């Protein structure tokens, strides 16, 4: 039998707004409107300031660890492509999308300050808690999409993850399930070129991350992840495809982590300064501003007003996060189960630990434990 090609693959790359703020008019058609671009620019700037403040909070001991989102704010455009009923199933580097989808801004700070209440999401806001075990939440997105499909709801689940997360089995299992079950699920890989200190070249030998979805039967593409127009268009098309054909999409958003991995590392120790400099020029804020300026929609005055507004908003958000009533030792036991079992109630009401026992003669011990 002669050899013949039975499978051909290609990956499209989309950029609509380039580094210099120049727009591809044709590709932009039907996409973001200027009012939306303005909104995104303001929002991204506020998120950038939020990151800077979070960093300072951590350095001054007011927060545990924080992963800066700096440089990846354009991902916020996904939220404009979504409707309220859609779900966001995040990891930790898409604050911009979450806030736009309705997450109160203090929640993320509260979470990283070490408070589970940061993951209590208001009723009607369709966002799941930040996921720390890398990649595991993509399967939850598939599960939510499964529920949406069974309930015949016209909504999709967007899930976000990094380049590193594609090396976890969960990514492959989630893609496989979403595609075989034809789920309304959109996978958004923020390829920021690094997984802590591991460069993209060590993460995979694959030429793109996007192509990893081809094997599962997903629609796959790479976009300039710092281009709000491309992010919006890709998310919007993927959403429509998911609802119309039940076909999941894998979007590789090509971007860069301008900050450290988290406040716990120093990227200068493993990254080339030149690489960073090059990427600074591709900053989504810079090009979006250039675009707006060219259209006479932005000015230095407006910028000043925005900066003051960002400061005001973030100051208030920090105040809200820090102002929450402090937890007490008794709170340790709450939410272990939907209904607290007797044994846990006993632990809570007597000794605080199990092995201290519950013998009545230990009343004194109990009193001292309460005093802790």
């Amino acid at each position, binding site marked *: 039998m002669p050899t013949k090609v039975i499978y051909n693959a290609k990956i499209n790359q989309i950029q609509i707004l380039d580094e210099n703020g120049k727009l591809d008019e044709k590709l932009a058609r039907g996409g973001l409107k200027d009012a939306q671009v303005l909104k995104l620019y303001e929002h991204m700037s506020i998120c950038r300031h939020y990151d800077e403040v979070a960093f300072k909070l951590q350095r001054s001991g007011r927060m545990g660890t924080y992963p800066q989102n700096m440089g990846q704010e354009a991902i916020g455009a996904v939220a404009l492509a979504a409707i309220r009923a859609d*779900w966001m*199933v995040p990891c930790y580097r898409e604050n911009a999308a979450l806030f736009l989808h309705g997450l109160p801004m203090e929640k993320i700070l509260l979470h990283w300050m070490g*408070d*589970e*209440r*940061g*993951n*209590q*999401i208001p009723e009607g806001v369709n966002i*799941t*808690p930040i996921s720390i*075990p890398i990649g*595991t939440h*993509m*399967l*939850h*997105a*598939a*599960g*939510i*999409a*499964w*529920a*949406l499909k*069974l309930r015949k709801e016209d909504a999709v689940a967007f899930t976000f993850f990094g380049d590193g997360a594609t090396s976890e*089995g*969960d990514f492959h*299992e*989630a893609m*496989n*399930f979403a595609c*075989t*079950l034809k789920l309304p699920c959109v996978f958004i890989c923020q390829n920021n070129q690094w997984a802590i200190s591991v460069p993209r070249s060590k993460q995979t030998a694959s030429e793109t991350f996007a192509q990893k979805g081809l094997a599962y039967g997903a629609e796959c593409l790479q976009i300039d992840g710092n281009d709000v127009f491309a992010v919006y268009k890709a998310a919007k098309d993927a959403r429509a495809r998911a609802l119309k054909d039940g076909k999941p999409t894998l979007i590789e958003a090509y971007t860069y982590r301008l900050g450290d991995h988290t406040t716990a590392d120093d990227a200068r120790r493993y990254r080339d300064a030149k690489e960073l400099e090059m990427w600074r020029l591709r900053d989504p804020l810079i090009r979006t501003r250039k675009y707006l300026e060219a259209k006479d929609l932005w000015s230095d005055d407006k910028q000043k007003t925005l900066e003051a507004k960002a400061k005001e908003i973030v100051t208030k958000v920090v105040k809200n996060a820090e102002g929450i009533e402090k937890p007490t030792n008794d709170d340790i036991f*709450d*939410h*272990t*189960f*939907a*209904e607290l*079992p*007797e*044994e846990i109630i006993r632990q809570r009401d007597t000794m605080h630990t199990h*092995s201290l*026992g*519950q*013998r009545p003669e230990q009343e004194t011990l109990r009193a001292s434990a309460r005093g802790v």
Partner: protein
Amino acid sequence: MPATEEKTRTNTDADLPSREGDRVIQFREALREAMTEEMHRDKRIFLMGEEVAEYQGAYKVSQGMLDEFGPKRIIDTPISENGFAGLGIGAAMYGLRPIIEFMSWSFSLVAADQILNNAPKMLYMSGGQWGCPIVFRGNNGAGGQLGSTHSWCVEALYSNVPGLKIAIPSCPYDAKGLLKTAIRDDDPVFFLESERMLGDKAHVPEEEYLVPFGKAARLREGDACTLVSFGRPVNFCLEAADTLREEDGIEVDVLDMRTIRPLDTAAIIESLKRTNRIVVVDQSWPFASVATEVITQVCEKAFDWLDHPPIRVNADDVPTPYSKPLEQAYLPHVGKILEAVRRAVG
């Protein structure tokens, strides 16, 4: 090897229907009835796992369910335990009530992060917001000559984790009543069945009943010794109790814990105060096992009531042997239980 024989049991569940009767069905049918009844009651429930649909279940537990409920509620999956465990968790977070079948709990090990690090912590980590009402169920335990990697008894390993519940029935009656409770529970429940028992037959009442969690069943009453067990070895304890009555002229209390988390320690202590001796029979390994936990709690709470050091009968502390005679020698069995009780009362 024949399936475990159903032994007569006294009924200590005052408010549950009688265990006596002639509607005799298999353990696997009891499980199926529980799922089927619950699925009719609640449209949010679905069953997902490997071979559950077209093939009617690897062990025929879900026989006929695909026809009855259709492919949207009885779902065959790729071989991807971590995948469907995680998918189930997502569906549970969004209000569905998944039943996830592992062909064997041995295969749940590749889904460890989902079942141990996600499901039982979701509620806690979200400050009470995201419950995870999900049932993971499947075969647990050795005895079928499946070799070491396929013979896991996960009860010791998994019961260490807060936020989850573990039910482990020993007979068809409890299998049905406990599974119905598990499906209605708002927390993740690990439901441990045993391939060795799926063919066991016993009366299961026609009328609806739910066996509550955290309530042990006293299956025999005696004053010589307390025998505590859960899952398949409960049946060995009943056999041992019969032998002890006939050969030694003594009566033992046999407690079937039915759920490990929550654990009915009150029932154990109550019994111990009458017998002053305790033997715990547990098919998993001895180190840091459920038996260890039971005995620790007994020592903490009723040390002065003990007339003999507590005794554990566990599997031997080695990987499960493949050889049939070695596997039987390795597991708790009637001979070991008799020896333990005789030592305790001797």
